[in-house]
C-alpha cells in the first residue's frame, strides 16, 4: 500500500500527517487528471523526427520519453491543451475532438 493511501478525507486530526507531509516522492503520477480534456492530441509517429521540442512545453509532463525517444501520450495526465501541437515543427501532432 502506498503511503498516500493514508491521506484521505476520512483521516482525523490526530492521525493526519504533520504539516501535510507526504512520505513518498512523485505522487502526482497516481492522480488521474486526464479524465477530462479540451481536445485530444494524436501522435503521428511516421512524421516525428524525435526532436523532443514537444516534451518540455507540456504543462502536465504527459509526453513520456524513453531511451531518448518520445512515446505516445500519457492520457492519464494529458489535458489536451494543444501546446505540444503548436511546438511541433513537423506536423507530427494533430489536435482532434475527443470522441467517447
Amino acid at each position, binding site marked *: 500500500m502506498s503511503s498516500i493511501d493514508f491521506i484521505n478525507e476520512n483521516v*482525523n*486530526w490526530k492521525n*493526519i500527517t*504533520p*504539516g*501535510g*507531509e507526504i512520505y*513518498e*516522492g512523485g*505522487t502526482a503520477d497516481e492522480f488521474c487528471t486526464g479524465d477530462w480534456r479540451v481536445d485530444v492530441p494524436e501522435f503521428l509517429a511516421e512524421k516525428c523526427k524525435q526532436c523532443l521540442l514537444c516534451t518540455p512545453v507540456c504543462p502536465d509532463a504527459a509526453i513520456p520519453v524513453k531511451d531518448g525517444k518520445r512515446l505516445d501520450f500519457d492520457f492519464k495526465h494529458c489535458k489536451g491543451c494543444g501546446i505540444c501541437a503548436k511546438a511541433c515543427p513537423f506536423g507530427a501532432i494533430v489536435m482532434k475532438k475527443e470522441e467517447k
Partner: protein
Amino acid sequence: MAIRERLSGNEAVANAMRQINPDVMAAFPITPSTEIPQYFSAYVANGKVDTAFVPVESEHSAMSACIGSEASGARTLTATSSCGLALMWEELYIAASCRLPIALACVNRALSGPININCDHSDSMGARDTGWIQIYAENNQEAYDNFVQAYRISEHKDVRLPIMICQDGFITSHAVENITLLEDKEVKDFVGEFNPKEYLLNEDHSMAIGPYDTPAFYMEHKRQQAQAMMNAKKVILEVAADFEKLSCRKYGLFEEYKLDDAETAIVIIGSAAGTSKDAVDALRAQGKKVGLLKIRVFRPFPAEEIAQALKGCKAIAIMDRCESFNSQGGPLGAEVRAALYEAGATPKTVNYVYGIGGRDVRVENIEEVYKALDEIVAAGKVEEPYRYLSLRD
C-alpha cells in the same frame, strides 16, 4: 565547570549558537540584532563551527532559506529584529505549519513607524499568532540559557515547532553584564544531535513537504499544529528541569517574585522585570505587600498557571511593551485578563502600555504603578483600565 564571563546579550546568544554548532545559519542584518550574525560569521570564518552561513538579500529570503534548509534535514537558525521580523511574516507561518523546528534569535525593537531603533515588543508580539514558540529573557544570562534550551524544545517529537528566543534590543543586547557560561561540551551534550525521522535530503526515502491543503484537510492540520503548541508546555518544563541539573539555574513558564502573599502585583515581560524587582524590594522594605510575575513563555501561553499564581491578589497591573490598537490595551493585557476570567479569579486589573520605542523604565516609574494599584484597591474599582506609563500629558 561554569565559566565566569562578561558579555553583551548579543555576544551571549552568539556564543550559545557557537556551542550548539548548527548546520545552517541564513541571516540578513538589522539593528539591534546585527551583531549576532556578525559574531557568528566570524566563528564560521575562523573554523570555530561547521555551519554553512547563507548571506541573503532580505529577511524574507532569510526565513525562506531557513525553511528549505530545515526541511532538508539541517539544524537551522537565524536572527532578526523589528521590520526584519515583519518581512519574514509570510514565512513564519509556513515554517510553523510545515512543523520545522527552526530557532530564531529575536532582538526586540519597535516597528516603524515612526521609525525607531529602540526596544519594545511590537515585533515579536505581532508574530505571536504565527505558530512559533516564544520565550523571553530578562537579561543576557536568560537569553543565553533560553537559546541553549531552544532546540530540545522545538525538535521534541511531541512539538516540532519553530522557536523564537527574544531579548530586549539594546537594553540587554548591547549591555555588557556578568554571565555564567556552560562549557562547550556541556552544551553539545545537552542539545544533542538533530535526527529528524523524515527529511527532504534522505536519499533512502523521498518525501514531499508543504503541499496544497484543500478545505477537507486544512482544519485537521491546524488542529494538530495547535496540539503541538499545547504539548510544548510540558516539554518546556522538562527541558528546564534538565537544564537546572546542568546549570543550577531554575526556569519555569514564568517567574514569581515575592508573589506568595502579595496584595498587588504586576505582570511584565523582559528587561523591565529586573528593574521592577528593585521596585518590589524597595516597597517591601516599606512594608507593602507587592509582588511580580515575569512571563518567560508567552507561546504557549500558560493561562491556567498564571491565573492560579495571581488569584490571591487584589489588583494587578499588566504591563505591555507594545500597542495593540484594539482600544482596550496590549496583547498581554488581553491574554492575562482572559486567563483570569476563565479561572473565575477576580482581581481588579489595569493594563499599562509602557517603554515603547525605547522609553526608559525606571524603578520610580514602576513604583508609581504599584501606587496606582493601591489606589485601585482603596477605591474598589478601576477608573481607567487602559493607561500609558511615563507619558507626557
